[in-house]
């Protein structure tokens, strides 16, 4: 499938993970900057920052690795 002209599913996944990563990482950074932590358990661990960053990195990897026309 990846060998055909079709855009691979992994590219779509890359797009979605990247967008989500930016949104969640952005919110996590906003939390740190403003000090307004969400009212959840273990908020001090800043899960949105590292989980968002992880999603963004994974998404970028898929975006580049499976970009159309590669």
């Amino acid at each position, binding site marked *: *499938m*990846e060998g*055909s002209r*079709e*855009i691979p*599913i992994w590219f*779509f*996944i890359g*797009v*979605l*993970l990247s*967008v*989500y990563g930016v*949104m*969640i990482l952005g*919110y*996590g950074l906003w*939390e740190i900057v403003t000090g307004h*932590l*969400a*009212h*959840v*358990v*273990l*908020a001090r*661990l800043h*899960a*949105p920052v590292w*989980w*968002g960053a992880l*999603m963004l990195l994974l998404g970028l990897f898929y975006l580049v690795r499976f970009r159309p026309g590669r």
Partner: protein
Amino acid sequence: MCPLHGADGHDRGKMLSMLTVPVLSLGISLPSATALALSAPSIAHLTGLDVAVIVIYFMMVMWIGYYLKSRANTSEEFFMAGREMTAWIAGLSFVSANLGSLELMGWAGSAYQYGILAAHWYWIGAIPAMLFLGIVMMPFYYVSKTHSVPGYLKLRFGQGSSTVAAVSFAFMTILMSGVNMFSMALVMKVVLGWNITFSIVVSSLAVAAYVALGGLRSAIFNEVLQFVLIWGGALLVPILGMIDAGGWTGLKTRILHDFPGQDYLHLWRGLGHFHDNPMGVHWTGIIFGLGFAISFGYWTTDFLVVQRVLAANSLRSARMAPVIGSFFKMAVPFIVILPGLLALVVLHNPNGSLMHLVGEDVVSAHPGMGLHSYNEVLPLMLVRYCGPGLLGLGITALIAGFMSGMAGNVSAFAAVWTYDIYQPMLRKNERDEHYVAVGRWATVLGVVVSIGAAYLVMHAQGIMDYVQALFSFFIAPLLGAILMGMFWKRATRAGGFWGLLTGTVTSVSLWAWVHFDPSALRLVALSPDAKDMAENMYRALWSLSITLLVTFVVSLYTSPRPESELNGLVYGATVLPKEESVAFYKNELFWAAVAVVVFVGLNVMFW
């Protein structure tokens, strides 16, 4: 009952039966989200960021469906995705079609209730069957070039058996799709306060659109996307939960301290007798009933999952796909069972006391007391750890799970309806374009009928009590017919047909017997202490045995087909295509062996 008002006890009662089958803030709330909410109290409240995450997901699945519409012009493309899927895509789709959100939430609730015993449904109740499908059965499905499981029965046993299997599959698939649709909408109502009709219409229309546009290829692509989302949205809960509980050692210590005398952490130790474990099951039922009759019946003959593997681009990919899927299936308890166990010790009431979740009947009997049911474990854990954005991601994971399951149902229904009912019985010799059009309309029709079934269930609660039993009526007999057809050259058409029919009648009869005379349980399930799950396991085992026996006996007294006609259909009469040799790490047998080692290791670890 008006479906649009309040998440009352009646609704919750219904959710119980549906989920237990075998079932915040950036500070900005968008007006549209507010408009969706009802006055009923809900567990979670979404922010604008959460709503944006959900909306983007819907945009993405529609984009994929629209993009792929030009790749679904022939019947082979529409129903079989052109048989172009790689092993990874087919394997992930194979698991994802089964990984519905109701299963996630239902089994998380079961883990809270019964402990790690619930993992049996992911390990012995799946892995051996998945590996058997990939290594042993797949060559026959794949080489025969059948479009469906009823299609295989037609090739092997003739139209009669195929029709019985196709009609029962089509009927049950649509009914299950409707049940799942309603259950999901109900969950969204209880968790988020969303309007039931809104949830049903939006999610089902999205599924109808992307499957009707892009066919199986679109369903599979979206299932892979949904699989990634399910993990991305749900994985954070056990990670943070383990930190919260002090790691595995801390979790064990706290469970032993808070629940003395109850065994939540062992898979096999309490299965010596029906009354030694809260599930009321016995190890023989788990191994032979769940691990063989039910599990093999579902994973090797249910077209909903087999269709994904049939879409693989080569025999090697088709064999590798279930093997790949088995590793992910073994990992699912990490995001389902572990949160249920963690909830036992980390969920607390506002006053600091340990929260005790209860059955839906208790919640229903005490409205307004703030009680939560077992089935709310995952949403409660999500709300505990996930703030804006992450909560939306978790909810999106649940929605994605629902949509992947529903897409699996309607795409399988469309194929079986077109190939196994419409084509042989209604319009035999039409052009290919005609059948593609029928498939598209069958997809839409399947969704519409599912919506009707959802509202039927909503207004007739009693149906839910029987749907799971109905579904189980067909699985084990179908397994018997397929096994005899695939591995015994002497099996005849009459044998297959009568075996399938008597097996199904046996299953229905046993169910009715226990239903009208509960004392019959000691005979059907071999113990008066057996509970529902044990009864299902033994009923499946009996009906499978009857199917095998009748097929065997009838075949001995009827004429078999010449062996030359069985090439590609039966073990021992089939010349399998020679596969080019590959490095060991690309070989399905190597990875199947690794899967067996991991499977055994997990069972020993949690013995």
